[in-house]
């Protein structure tokens, strides 16, 4: 029972490769969402310079997360 609730439903889930793909996939989806997010959610007050843009920093953090899970997943 320990931790296999989903594993029993999805036999493939038992593999660590599947796990790494799932974690990376979550951050890839987040990255896509950050990139396509409408401007009114990102900067309704007006677009700041790129280095002050929360979107740019968020994209950078997400990209680093993807690399971290690819390397050490």
């Amino acid at each position, binding site marked *: *029972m320990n931790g296999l609730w989903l594993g029993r439903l999805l036999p493939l889930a038992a593999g*660590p490769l599947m*796990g790494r793909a799932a974690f990376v996939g979550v951050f890839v989806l*987040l990255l896509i969402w*950050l990139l396509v997010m409408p401007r009114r959610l990102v900067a309704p007050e007006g677009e700041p310079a790129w280095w002050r843009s929360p979107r740019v920093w968020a994209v950078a*953090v997400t990209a680093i997360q993807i690399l971290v899970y690819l390397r050490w997943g």
Partner: protein
Amino acid sequence: MIYWRPFAATRPVAAGLWPVECYCVRMCAPCAHLLGYERKAGSPPPVRPWFDEGPLRLRSALMDKIVLKPLDIALVVSYLAVVTLLGLWLARGIRSSRDFFLAGRSLPWWAVGMSLVVSDIGAKDMVGLATDGYRFGLVMMNFDLIGCVFPVLVAAFLFMPFLWMAGVYTIPEYLGLRYNAAVRTFFAIVWALFMIGTVGVIFVSAAVIFRSLLGWSLWFSIGVTAILVGIYTTVGGLKAVVVTDTLSCIVLTAGAALICILGLARVGGLAGLHETVSQLEWTEHHFHLVLPADHFEFPWPAVLLGLGFVLGPAYWIGNQAIVQRTLGSRSRGQARASYVFCAVLKLFFPLLLVLPGLIGLALFHEQLGAPFLDAAGTPNPAWNGDAVLPMLIGELLPTGVLGLVVGAFLAGVLSNLDSYINSASTLVVTDLYRPLLPGAGDRHYLRVGRALVVVFLAAGAVVSYFVVPVFDSVYEAFQTFMTFFQGPLLALLLLGMLSRRTTAWGGFAGLALGISAAGAMHAVRFVLGEEHKIPYLWVAWWSFVAAVAGTVLVSLVTRPYDTRRLAGLVCWLPAEKESAP
């Protein structure tokens, strides 16, 4: 922090394995007298047996190497003095409850971001993550990477600017506006109880660490931390809390970084660390963030779903102690930027907190041994994991640096404590007291808020008295208590913010179903036995799923709210007149 320690990690060590008469700090006679110790030649200072013999002993043969020199003590005292004076100085200009509870909405993004980070990290987390870094390795970094960075980035763009615009002081206040007063009161009481318990736990965990590092007795430690936090939190409110937190963040980062740098230098760098740890038989997964789905403690589906999708978001979107400082930001844009800055900082903190555990493993595996007896995770009763970080400190840090690290522990304690105290006061005044006594005048609420800071500190001290002998059981009980509510809370928040179709009856049904599901899953261990215990990450996930299902189904068959009533309460329905300045 949402990081939870697996219970087995803190079991009492086998009797006699660690020397009972081992004291970690050598004090001068006046200091010993001041701290209540009566020293006789060749004998250790007396201690209260019920505190000293409890399950939280942080002793090892190496710990008597920790000796605070005058420079260390000067650094610690200077830090405490600066924090207190800074907090008092910031009390100027507090004239209304809004100034006190939300810092007059004047906080800059960088201060809020740093405060978010240290509010999340307590002294117990510092010790505990090093311990579990030793036991499990890099997987512990998931508590920050998937449990924090992911929900924080989503919240930064979707929820925090929206909550800021709603102009609320607390999360239960938002739930009251979105659903009804009953939901608001229910969650306010749950959070208030949890916060009192948390304050007690912070007091005790801090006392245990200061006992090890400084030789302080339990009540001396509680007294010092309560008075320091009480002074600047009572007079300075959220602004004092956030600004002192930024200082704490710097000290905490410097202290943790020093342990990592000096530790890596000792073990031969990252390559030497990897080589030494990999040679051990039981460290197969220590350099992996994702563990197999049948792992006994951290199966990846549970980590991803339970931690990443439920506990993490519930904590970073629904925890008053976290969210409140963001509500005090200068603007909607600054609220968003503070969360993104927190995510940036959180890229480094998991490394700073988990790496010491791996360094400790490389250095002390022969003394401490393996934490498990077999691959199924049967705990080794002779293993004392809580000694990992104190042993590292004793082994690695020279004079001056030791003072900085002790300051880092203090920073963790103070920032953790002031956040919960300030938020508990805000929550009780806003969601329980003000609805009971409306129209009492703003200065009255301000006075009550300040008084409640003292009340919560006193209540936490009382709780700590009862917590000490059964600390691990109580710590686990508080965390278990919250698993009943985290999933349903998140479900109500998300569905309330994202869908105009969600109704009050739907929210009530989701709440009841989610809590029932969590209760049923917790009951499995009592009905079927401990070996069938369901991991808490799964409890969080399935109670969330049950709450979502209940809320959606009942909302669909009940009459929806008028769209005008929901303006400013649902993300896609902006307020006609924005409530925030």
